[in-house]
C-alpha cells in the first residue's frame, strides 16, 4: 500500500470499477498493456451494479438500431458463456410479459416486431389459459402474455468480482478507495499530448489513456478530462423489495410488465439466491448517493405486488433497497473515443450494463485500438476464474459431502438463513479481491442476507471479520490489490 508518486505511467487507467469498468479492465488485461482499475469506493461493483433487478436481458425490447441493442445482444451472449465458465450463478427462467389492460394487450404485437428488429425471434404469444397454467399464483385479470424464453436471472455481485479477479490475476492493478479528484494533460517532449496526469487521494497517477466508466459520476469525470460534455447524469432511483425464499415456489418465470406511455411498470422476478424480487420504482433524484427507500415507494410496490401475485405480499420481506440508474438525457449509451486526447468514455449505460458489460468492453477496446492503442495479445491466456458458487439452484458447499470431507469448515454453517459456511467466509476473506467490510462479505457469500438479517449470526460474522487481516478497518480505505498481493 504505497502512496508515493507513480513511477511508470500506466498504458490505461480505467476510472470506475463497476460492472462496466471491471469488464473493460478485464478485456484490456488480455493484451500487452499496463492497466489500472481505480474506484472511489472500497470494493468493486458498489454503485449501480450492486442494486438492480439482476436480470440477464436478451435485449428483446431495446431500441432497434441503437448501440445499446447491438451491445446488449452481443454482451448477453458473451456473458451467458462466461458465467458458465466462471461459476457465476445464472438461471434461465424465461420471462412472461403480462398484459393487464386492453392498451397493454394491443401493444404486444409491436413488442414481438421490435424483438425481431433486435434479431431476437423467440418471443411467442401465449394464450391466457396457458399463462395461468404456467403461473397459477398470478393475480386475476391478465388478458394475454408474451413469452421471452431466454431472459435469465444472474448474480450481479459475482459478475463484476469475476471480471476484477480475472483482471487482477492478469496483472491489472486494482486501486480501491481511490477517488480521482482532478486531471490535466501530460505532455511529452515537444508538447505532444502523451496522456493524463490524474490526481487521486493517494497521489498522482499518470496514464497514456483514460477510460471513463464512472457510472453515476461519469459526467463529472468527463468534464474533468475535457470530454465533449454531451451528456448529464440524471440519477433515477429504483426501490425494490426482496421476499423470503419461502415465496420462491410462487413463480416460475420472470413476470414483466408491458411498458406504456405512463409507466415502465413493476416486475416480479426470482433471484439466483432463491428469493423473489419486486420492483423497481422509478424516481428522478438529484443526490447521487441517495439510495434510501421511501414510504411511498414501498407502499406502491406492495400494492403492485398484490395485483400481480397476491400471495407474495403475505410472505415475509427479507430486504428492501434502492439502486440508482445512471440515466442521461439520451436514450442510448454514451460511448465515444477521442484519439487525440486518448480518452474513452463509456457512460449512460442506464440499467442494462450488467447484461451488456462484455459487449461494451469489447466495443470500447475496439474503438481504442482504432484510435491507436496497440492491442497485442499477451503470451499465455488467462482463463476465467472459478468463482465461489453462491446460487441456489446448484450445489452449495453445505450440501457437498466431498467438500466437507476434504475441509470440515464447509460443514460449519455460520449464517443459517443463507446456509453460508465458515469455509466460504474464510475463502472470501482470502480471495484475490477480498471484501473490505461486511457488505463486501455479504456480496461474496450471501452471509447475513437472509430472513433474520443477523438475529442469529451477525455477532459471529463480525467476530470472523475482525479476526481476518482483510476485515480490519485499515483496509477499508486506500486498498490496493495486485496479483502479488493476494491470490
Amino acid at each position, binding site marked *: 500500500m504505497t502512496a508515493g508518486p507513480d513511477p511508470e505511467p500506466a498504458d490505461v487507467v480505467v476510472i470506475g470499477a463497476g460492472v462496466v469498468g471491471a469488464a473493460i479492465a478485464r478485456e484490456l488485461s488480455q493484451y500487452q498493456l499496463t492497466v489500472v482499475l481505480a474506484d472511489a469506493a472500497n470494493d468493486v461493483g458498489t454503485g449501480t451494479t450492486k442494486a438492480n433487478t439482476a436480470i440477464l436481458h436478451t435485449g428483446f425490447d431495446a431500441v432497434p438500431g441503437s448501440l445499446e441493442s447491438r451491445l446488449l445482444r452481443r454482451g448477453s451472449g458473451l456473458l451467458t458463456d462466461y458465467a458458465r465458465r466462471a461459476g457465476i450463478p445464472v438461471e434461465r427462467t424465461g420471462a412472461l410479459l403480462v398484459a393487464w389492460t386492453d392498451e397493454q394487450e394491443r401493444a404486444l404485437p409491436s413488442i414481438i416486431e421490435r424483438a425481431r428488429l433486435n434479431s431476437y425471434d423467440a418471443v411467442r404469444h401465449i394464450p391466457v389459459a396457458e399463462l395461468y397454467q404456467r403461473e397459477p399464483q398470478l393475480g386475476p385479470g391478465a388478458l394475454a402474455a408474451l413469452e421471452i424464453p431466454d431472459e435469465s436471472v444472474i448474480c450481479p455481485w459475482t459478475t463484476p468480482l469475476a471480471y476484477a479477479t480475472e483482471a487482477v490475476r492478469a496483472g491489472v492493478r486494482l486501486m480501491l478507495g481511490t477517488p480521482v479528484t482532478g486531471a490535466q494533460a501530460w505532455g511529452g517532449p515537444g508538447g505532444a499530448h502523451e496522456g493524463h496526469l490524474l490526481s487521486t487521494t493517494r497521489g498522482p497517477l499518470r496514464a497514456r489513456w483514460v477510460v471513463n466508466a464512472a457510472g453515476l459520476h461519469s459526467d463529472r469525470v468527463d468534464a474533468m478530462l475535457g470530454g465533449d460534455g454531451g451528456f448529464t447524469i440524471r440519477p433515477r432511483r429504483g426501490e425494490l*423489495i426482496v421476499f423470503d425464499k*419461502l415465496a420462491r415456489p410462487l413463480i416460475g418465470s420472470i413476470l414483466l410488465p408491458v411498458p406504456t406511455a405512463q409507466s415502465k411498470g413493476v416486475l416480479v422476478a426470482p433471484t439466483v439466491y432463491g428469493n423473489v424480487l419486486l420492483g423497481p420504482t422509478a424516481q428522478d433524484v438529484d443526490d447521487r448517493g441517495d439510495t434510501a427507500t421511501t414510504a411511498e415507494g414501498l407502499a406502491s410496490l406492495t400494492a403492485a405486488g398484490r395485483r400481480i401475485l397476491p400471495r407474495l405480499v403475505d410472505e415475509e*420481506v427479507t430486504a428492501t*433497497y434502492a439502486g440508482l440508474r445512471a440515466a442521461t438525457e439520451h436514450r442510448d449509451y454514451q460511448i465515444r473515443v477521442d484519439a487525440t486526447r486518448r480518452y474513452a468514455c463509456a457512460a449512460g449505460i442506464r440499467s442494462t450494463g450488467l447484461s451488456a458489460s462484455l459487449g461494451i468492453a469489447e466495443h470500447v477496446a475496439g474503438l481504442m485500438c482504432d484510435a491507436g492503442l496497440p492491442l497485442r495479445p499477451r503470451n499465455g491466456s488467462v482463463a476465467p476464474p472459478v468463482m465461489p458458487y453462491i446460487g441456489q439452484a446448484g450445489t452449495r458447499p453445505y*450440501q457437498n459431502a466431498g467438500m466437507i470431507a476434504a475441509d470440515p469448515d464447509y460443514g460449519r454453517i455460520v449464517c443459517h438463513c443463507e446456509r453460508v459456511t465458515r469455509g466460504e467466509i474464510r475463502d472470501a476473506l482470502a480471495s484475490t479481491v477480498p471484501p473490505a467490510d461486511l457488505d463486501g462479505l455479504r456480496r461474496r457469500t450471501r452471509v447475513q442476507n437472509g430472513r433474520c438479517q*443477523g438475529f*442469529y449470526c451477525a455477532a459471529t460474522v463480525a467476530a470472523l471479520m475482525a479476526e481476518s487481516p482483510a476485515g480490519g478497518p485499515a483496509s477499508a480505505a486506500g486498498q490496493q490489490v495486485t496479483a502479488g498481493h493476494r491470490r
Partner: protein
Amino acid sequence: MNVDVLIVGAGPAGLAAAVELRRLAAGQVLVADREQQPGGVPRHSAHTGYGMRDLHRVLTGPAYARHYAAAAAGVGAEIRASTTVTGWDGAGCATLTSASGVETVSARAVLLATGCRERPRPARLVPGDRPAGVMTTGELQQRVFLHGERLPGRALVVGAEHVSFSAMVTLEHAGADVVALVTGLPRQQSYAAFALAALARWRVPVWTSTALRWVDGRERLTAVDVADTRTGAVRRVECDTLVFTADWIPDHELARTAGIEIDPGTLGPAVDTSLETSARNVFAAGNLVHAAETADVAALGGVHAAQHIAAALRGGDPAASPWAKDPSQASGPAAHRVTVTVEPPLAWISPNAIRFAASADAAPVAPPRGRFLLRSQVFRRRAGLEVRQGPRVLARQSTRLIPGRPVHLGAGWLAAVRPSDGPVLVRLADGRA
C-alpha cells in the same frame, strides 16, 4: 442413521422433550441444533427469572440453558450442536449438515422445536437509509453477551414489551445511553414495574403512540424520525444504535418445506392438543407454535409433546415413518380433530385443534398445562372471552388483554366439545363477561 425420535432444536422445548422421552424410555433420541452450543435463546439472555414454572427455581438464562443441556445429555439423549437440519428427503428422512459431513437421519417420530425470531427492520418496511447500527434484540444480546461488544452512544429501542425492557438493560450494560422505548400502541405492554424501574433507575421513558418513520445515515446510523400517531407531528431523534424488539415470527422453514400445514394466526405449524402437526408423528413445540412465550412455558410444551410422542411410539408400528401418506402404514384409525380458531381482535390461539383419540368414547386430549394460549391485538382491562361451537356457548371467561402478552384460556370446556359439530371459535363477547 436411524433413531426413534429426532428433535430439531436444542432450546428449552427440544431439550425438555429429550429429557422426558428418555425418562419414558422412548428409545434413541437425537437432538440437532445449528448453534455451536445447545440451550437456545436463554444462552445469551443474561437476566434472571428462568425456570420458575418448570424447574421451580430461578436461574439466569445461561445457567438455565446449561441445566437443560446437561440434563438431556445425562439421561442419554444424543445432542449434536453445530448441526443443521437442512431439509427432508423424499422418503421422510431429515438431511443434516455438520463438520462431519452430510447425513440422512430416519426417525420414527420428529419434534420440531426451532423457536422464533424477531422481525428485523426490512420485514417491518421501515423506509430510509440502510446504515450499520440497526439490529434485533437477538443480535444485540449475542454481540454483548457472547462476544463482549461495547455499544457506546445513544440508542433507541423499538417496542415496549418485556423483551424491549430486556434490550434496554442489555444496551445500558453495553455502555449505551438509551434515549427511549417507542411503541405505536397507546400503552407499554410489559409489567408496570418494569416501566417504572426503567424511568427511575435509567431515566428511560416509554414514548407511546409513536411510530418510527425514517432511518437516517449513509454508513452509520445517525438519527431516526419518529411521529406522534395522534397528531402526526414528526421529530428527529439522534441515535447510534436502533434495536427492533418483539414482533415475533416462528422459524417455520423446516415445517413449510415439509409441506406441513401452517396456522394463519401463529404462522407456526398447526398443532392439535397433543402437539402433533398435520403430518403423522411429526410434532411441534415451544415458540415455533406460540411466538413468543417464556422459556419455561416452551419447556413444558416440550414435555407435553414428549409424552404424546412416547405414547404414539408405544402404540404404533415401529416401521411407520413420519409423513406416511398411505393410511395402511399408519397404526390404527387416525385421530379425529376439531379445529380451534379466534376472531379479531384476538390474534391467534395455540394449540390450533382439539385431538380426540380414535375410539368414539375417548376423551379429548388436554393441551399443554391444561390451557390454551392466545394473543390480542388490543388492550382491554376487562374482556369477556367466549368459547363457541356452532350455536352452543361452551364457556365464558373474563380476562385482561395486552398486545404481546399471553392470555390463558382454561380447558375445562373440552368435555363439552362434540367431535362432529365443527370448529370451535374463541371470540370477545364484549360487556357480557
